[in-house]
């Protein structure tokens, strides 16, 4: 739609899971009659080059695959997808990946869903971190998001939930367990429509953990097909899950459940309590809808909707409170079973956003997806706590951020040592003038001594020396004048190395001052002030200082 046909970067689990998510999406899209997406299920071993087709609505037969599950008539083609190399340990990052000679990207573990990542995009010394959805609290199968002190110029984070304080995971789980427990205790059946991936696994693990403790005998089923495929993927991507799961994986595969069994269609008619996870998630078709129709008429039963349902689906209707549904063939289904809406989606809340900003230490923060009026407090909070600027642009608005890019320059050790050897030690609070030559070569900046640079360039060195004559009225001998000059300069130039040499001359750093008698006027002395080009600044200063005259001798 936007005409992009370049590479798409994604994490490995995303690449594998993408087709399934898109398949689910396609089904809803068909319901909505908005677009027809053409789709092709990837063989997840290969990196395939395929072209992105405009959404023209051509439908093609899929090539036969060895999978028992064959996708329906859709075709979807992706640009080359490049897998982010594994860095899925939590906390984890991918290595820095070069897109071209200027652009680098890096992925960070984001929790939230399997394979979710936050991205750092870097050009030169400037970088932006874009978070997408992330979760700062670990859940049963995923770790928490994490980012290092990468100090990007800008951190872009979504703020939909920034003004919420989330109920603890434990209480959400408790609520789910309570509902299931109460239903099963009274002999009812619980239907949980799920998407192929995501919450199903989380809830399976939860029930599995508590089934024994709660001493429940009722069976738990998950429907075959996509959910199994998802578990298969999860086993492949076990490194992307949290530590607890990985530890138990060694002893026993967490995704092989003790109490959760594969579902058979016939079981829906069995008497007695049971819990069934079935796809698809919005009750708009397939197995979950079939089971729903069988169980809806009994008030002992319960359906738990674990997420948002698109308008038009049965899920959406019952969540809106509808109790009589018109099915195909003008049949009316009366819904007597209990309907529960539970939200398990995990987003960062106010606390999570502050944690992430604290970890990354950005120079600026940009909040998206919020309403300006409701973000003022959070903006102030971020600005105060982290001393950064916080922006909240409206859709379509442009934000310009000043950055101070740094250009790293290497300084030769020889040059540094020479500088240190001269005169007083450097004072970190006082700027010190350093002479060198900047060589820019092969995107490399070096500061070297002039001699070194000339040598590298094969040029001969020339020295520039300035001499200035300052006339002073002084009737005494040159030597005494020199002493006067020395005393005066010593008292005025406290930060410089002023010396009186045995031959009567005075040096200030490397500048030489000699007193001589005037050839014609004995009352006048001539000060010869001599300096090299490098000491121009100090030389000029000395000259004007001496021109002002010397204090009277005491």
């Amino acid at each position, binding site marked *: 739609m936007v005409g992009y046909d370049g590479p798409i970067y994604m994490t490995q689990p995303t690449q594998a899971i993408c087709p399934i998510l898109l398949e689910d999406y396609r089904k809803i899209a068909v319901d909505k009659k908005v677009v027809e997406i053409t789709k092709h299920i990837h063989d997840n071993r290969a990196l395939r080059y395929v072209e992105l087709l405009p959404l023209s609505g051509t439908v093609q037969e899929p090539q036969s695959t060895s999978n028992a599950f064959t996708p329906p008539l859709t075709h979807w083609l992706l640009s080359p997808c490049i897998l982010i190399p594994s860095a899925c340990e939590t906390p984890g990052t991918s290595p820095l990946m070069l897109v071209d000679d200027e652009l680098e990207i890096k992925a960070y573990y984001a929790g939230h869903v399997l394979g979710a990542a936050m991205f750092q995009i870097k050009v030169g010394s400037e970088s932006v971190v874009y978070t997408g959805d992330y979760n700062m609290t670990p859940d049963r199968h995923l770790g928490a998001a994490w980012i290092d002190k990468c100090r990007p110029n800008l951190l872009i984070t979504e703020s939909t939930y920034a003004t*919420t*304080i989330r*109920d*603890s995971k434990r209480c959400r789980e408790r609520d789910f367990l*309570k509902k299931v427990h109460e239903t099963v205790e009274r002999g009812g059946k619980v239907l949980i429509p799920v998407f192929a991936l995501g919450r199903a696994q989380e809830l399976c693990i939860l029930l599995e953990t508590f089934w024994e*403790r709660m001493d429940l005998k009722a069976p738990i089923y998950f429907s075959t097909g996509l959910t199994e495929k998802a578990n298969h993927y999860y086993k492949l991507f076990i490194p992307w899950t949290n530590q607890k799961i990985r530890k138990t994986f060694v002893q026993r595969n967490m995704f092989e459940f003790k109490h959760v069994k594969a579902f058979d269609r016939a079981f829906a008619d069995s008497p007695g309590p049971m819990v069934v996870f079935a796809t698809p998630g919005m009750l708009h078709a397939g197995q979950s809808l079939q089971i729903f129709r069988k169980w809806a008429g009994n008030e002992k039963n319960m359906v738990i909707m674990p997420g948002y349902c698109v308008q038009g689906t049965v899920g959406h209707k019952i969540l809106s409170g509808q109790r009589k549904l018109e099915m195909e063939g003008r049949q009316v289904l009366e819904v007597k079973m209990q309907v529960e809406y539970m*939200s398990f989606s995990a987003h960062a809340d106010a606390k999570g956003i502050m944690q992430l900003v604290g970890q990354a230490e950005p120079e600026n923060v940009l909040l998206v997806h919020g309403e300006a009026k409701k973000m*003022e*407090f959070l903006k102030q909070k971020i600005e105060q706590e982290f001393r950064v600027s916080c922006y909240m642009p409206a859709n379509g608005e442009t934000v310009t951020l000043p950055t101070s890019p740094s250009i790293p320059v290497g300084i030769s050790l020889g040059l540094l040592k020479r500088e240190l050897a001269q005169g007083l030690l450097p004072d970190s609070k006082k700027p010190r003038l350093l002479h060198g030559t900047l060589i820019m070569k092969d995107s490399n900046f070096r500061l070297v001594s002039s001699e070194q640079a000339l040598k590298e360039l094969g040029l001969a060195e020339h020295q520039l020396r300035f001499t200035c004559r300052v006339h002073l009225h002084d009737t005494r001998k040159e030597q005494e004048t020199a002493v006067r000059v020395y005393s005066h300069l010593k008292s005025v130039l406290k930060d410089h190395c002023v010396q009186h040499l045995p031959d009567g001359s005075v040096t200030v750093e490397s500048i030489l001052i000699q007193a001589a008698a005037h050839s014609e006027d004995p009352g006048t002395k001539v000060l010869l002030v001599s300096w090299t080009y490098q000491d121009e600044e100090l030389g000029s200063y000395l000259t004007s200082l001496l021109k002002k005259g010397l204090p009277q001798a005491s």
Partner: protein
Amino acid sequence: MEPAEDWLVESLRLYQDFHAFDLSGATRVLEWIGDKGILVAGYESLKKNEILHLILPLRLSVKENQGLFPERDFKVRHGGFSDRSVFDLKYVPDTRLLVTSGLPGCYLQVWQVAEDSDVIKAVSTIDVHEKEGRLWPRMAIFSSAAPGVLHGARLSSLKVVDLESQKTTYSSGISDDELLSSLQVLDADTFAFCCTSGRLGLVDTRQKWTPSENFRPGSGSAGGRWCAEAGGRGPGPSIASLGSDGQLCLLDPRDLCQPVSLVQCPVSMPSPDPELLRVTWAPGLDNCLAISGFDGTVQVYDVTSWGGMGRQVEPLFTHKGHIFLDGNGMDTAPLVTTHTWHPCKPRTLLSAASDASLHVWDWVDLHAAR
């Protein structure tokens, strides 16, 4: 299994509903705005504290079809920053104003909740003359067309100040400088006070200082530190006074000199911080009150048929969530800093603890006949 998971399974039976939140900073304040919003405020020293106006999760506000509301989170509707610790906060009904009291500095801060943004801003202060630096004035609001703030750290400094004109409209005018622990407005002309010694009285502001008072319970200085609340529903005593050693005294406002009962609540030790003692009457249940401030629990009591002196009583329900859900795993168990009843849902309470946790819980009355 971890004790937290054990308790969670237990909780299926003990609570109808249960929510647990983590605030960015612990609060000693839980003040209602209407029946859908509460105010919390931080009390840390040497740090900017937040004052937050939180809207309750929708599921707690709806009366029907609760199951169709998945929202379980608090929404931060307004927020502000306080340089001082906030020990008390009162909302001025029918206005957009709040008043806070805290340390350092003995003055009251008045805040305004913005209408067109989500910011709470400091607008003015009310001076309080108190020489002792570590005392902070207690407050209560006389809400009327011209609201006034009743405040004072001692009996002698009790005043009512008109919020708009800042003029003093009432003064206790006495020299008795006993320290106050709580103030409560009962109606347009009456307020109740409780001193730290346990001395309490009802004052009519239309008259010169002649409160109806009690004799102090306990003997002299060994009596511990007390606080009180008036407001019991149903027949029977409507004033409860709680001491730091766990003694609970019930009084009838018509005769404060004769306590109706004096009981000992089962607390493992005296309150480690008697300033946190809280006793509250349930607005939706007869003869029911809750206490906190001794440890990480909130205890609910049915005071029907309590009579006589010195008996031991058992709570109807004990909320232990703050102990078991202590996410920090620190050695020091959290201390409940305050609690409050939901104005409409009879058995729903909110409680906050020193580990910045905030719980909303609806306990099951296991004693009730089925």
